């Protein structure tokens, strides 16, 4: 990166942090630290909810995913607007009526304290580990592309986030996220404009969209009922609804965003804003990836977008890499001719599709060589496509802005995670044990626990490189906890007869079932969510019947 890029990057990030610090000054009570504020408006809540879900990897991976597979990933978000409506209509009023700080307080109100604390513990473990990944993943990509040391990137990214989250609490998180979203939106619009401007003279935007359509990149809806296809209309609507309800309804990093301290109407409008904007926003990011794909149909793309990895392979297998590069040049020229022929007669696309299939086969061959050349090397380069495109084609200054977009996204998602981890620690564990502690002490515990969780996340990120296939590992870890968490909330909301003892043991059984399936079974990890939820929802009423027969006393409100 040039000096101008560094200046843009540092000024943008410093400006965001200064804005957050200025807007969140005067946080002197625990209430002010845990809440974004009574004066918060719905658009701040909406932007904050969107920013919390959009991590750095969203902006690194999603355009690359569209480059490879087209718009189909958007279907994953089809359940989200429905989830926002259900949340606004059913769950949000309950949280507001109980005036809770964390989602888990509801579980004590509905069941008992041990069910609350067990579920809160599941959240702390899963979110604590995930926040480590939220730091490590962008640091890994930035280090590979820009040559930054991973360890330093982890610590700088983590330290800046920890400082403003600890100082300004939830208010700083929300205010900073509005500025971060502004930078992200501006950066993405500029990136889209740049991609369109890179189309050669005589090749219009309309031609680009047609070319993407001819090569199958515009399929955003797959109405087939195939279960072996990851993203279809139905898996998006049903599976997506399940995942988004679990995430937005029971994950404190989101619950804290919309239970911001203002009136119910503002929280509702904020959630509905998310429901209205999320699908178009994801579609726009995917369409940006499609435009990058179109540019690389007309301008030679790299053989492999993770250049550092390819150079390592070249050192050990120079002849193989040279041969692949020569074939790549030849296939690109062949495809360019096919595009010219297609432009002359747009209805005749089969030759074009065959030329593209040969290029894709060569990319796979290159990935296979990368994988076999070094143990642990990643054969996929999709996460590197967008950043490589930016570095190769954007002018000075704009590169710094786009790196600021990626770091802003990392900081916004992570600050919300740290704030929620600190809030859950103090509200669900410290406060019940020390109900008479002075507010100044509770505030200090909240700040220190936020900082401690930040250090745990950075430490995990620092050692993450020791794990093989880290993203897969952390995805599996996340899926180990979400199912039972959603299950116990669903039991609370919809199975009125189930009381505390049955809910607690059903949740424990759900967690054991998931851990057993992970240890001994061959179930795909996404199904752990369904399994854990189903065990809790299925077992809780049965246990309730058993416990009701064995004990004549009611089991509501029992405290341990």
């Amino acid at each position: 990166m040039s000096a101008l890029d560094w200046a843009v990057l540092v000024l943008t990030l410093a400006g965001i942090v200064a804005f957050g610090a200025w807007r969140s000054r005067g946080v002197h009570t625990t209430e002010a630290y845990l809440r974004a504020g009574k004066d918060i408006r719905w658009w701040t809540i909406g932007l904050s909810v969107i920013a919390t879900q959009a991590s750095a990897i969203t902006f690194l991976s999603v355009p690359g995913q569209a480059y490879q597979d087209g718009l189909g990933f958007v279907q994953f978000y089809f359940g989200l607007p429905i989830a926002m409506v259900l949340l606004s209509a059913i769950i949000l009023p309950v949280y507001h009526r109980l005036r809770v700080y964390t989602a888990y307080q509801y579980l004590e109100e509905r069941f008992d304290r041990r069910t609350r604390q067990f579920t809160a513990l599941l959240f702390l473990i899963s979110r604590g580990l995930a926040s480590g990944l939220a730091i490590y993943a962008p640091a890994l990509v930035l280090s590979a592309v820009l040559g930054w040391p991973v360890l330093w990137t982890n610590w700088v990214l983590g330290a800046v986030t920890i400082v403003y989250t600890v100082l300004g609490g939830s208010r700083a998180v929300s205010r900073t996220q509005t500025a971060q979203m502004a930078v992200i939106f501006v950066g993405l619009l500029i990136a889209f404009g740049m991609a369109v401007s890179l189309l050669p003279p005589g090749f219009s935007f309309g031609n680009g969209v047609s070319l993407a359509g001819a090569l199958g990149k515009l399929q955003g809806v797959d109405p087939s009922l195939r279960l072996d296809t990851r993203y279809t209309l139905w898996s998006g609507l049903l599976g997506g609804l399940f995942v988004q309800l679990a995430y937005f309804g029971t994950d404190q990093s989101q619950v804290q965003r919309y239970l911001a301290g203002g009136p119910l109407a503002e929280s509702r409008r904020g959630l509905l804003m998310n429901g209205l904007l999320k699908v178009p926003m994801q579609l726009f990011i995917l369409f940006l990836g499609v435009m990058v794909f179109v540019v690389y149909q007309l301008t030679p793309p790299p053989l492999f977008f993770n250049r550092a990895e390819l150079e390592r392979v070249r050192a050990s297998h120079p002849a193989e890499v040279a041969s692949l590069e020569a074939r790549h040049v030849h296939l690109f020229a062949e495809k360019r001719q096919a595009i010219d022929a297609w432009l002359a007669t747009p209805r005749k696309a089969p030759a074009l599709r065959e030329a593209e299939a040969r290029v894709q086969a060569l990319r796979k061959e290159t990935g296979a060589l990368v994988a076999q050349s070094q143990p642990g090397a990643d054969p996929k380069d999709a996460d590197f496509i967008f950043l490589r495109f930016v570095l190769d084609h954007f002018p000075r200054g704009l590169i710094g802005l786009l790196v600021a977009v990626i770091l802003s996204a990392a900081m916004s998602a992570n600050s919300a995670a740290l704030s929620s981890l600190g809030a859950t620690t103090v509200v669900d564990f410290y406060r019940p044990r020390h109900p008479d502690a002075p507010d100044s002490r509770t505030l200090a515990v909240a700040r220190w626990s936020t900082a401690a969780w930040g250090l745990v996340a950075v430490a995990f990120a620092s050692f993450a490189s020791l794990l093989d296939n880290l993203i897969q590992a952390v995805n599996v870890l996340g899926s180990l906890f979400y199912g039972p968490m959603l299950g116990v909330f669903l039991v609370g909301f919809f199975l009125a007869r189930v009381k505390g003892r049955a809910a607690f043991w059903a949740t424990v059984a759900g967690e054991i079932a998931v851990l057993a399936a992970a240890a001994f079974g061959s179930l795909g990890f996404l199904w752990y969510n369904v399994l854990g939820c189903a065990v809790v929802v299925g077992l809780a009423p049965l246990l309730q019947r058993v416990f009701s027969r064995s004990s004549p006393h009611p089991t509501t409100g029992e405290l341990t």
Partner: protein
Amino acid sequence: MAERDPEPERAEPRDERWGRLYALVIGALVLEIAGLWVLERVFR
């Protein structure tokens, strides 16, 4: 710090207004899905 948020409940806007907003969110989703379906067929 209070165990619960001390802020009392405020009056909610009328229910039918929320119903219209919910319909807007779901309607937008239906239009987006239909739009994507048409886009793919037009540029196939």
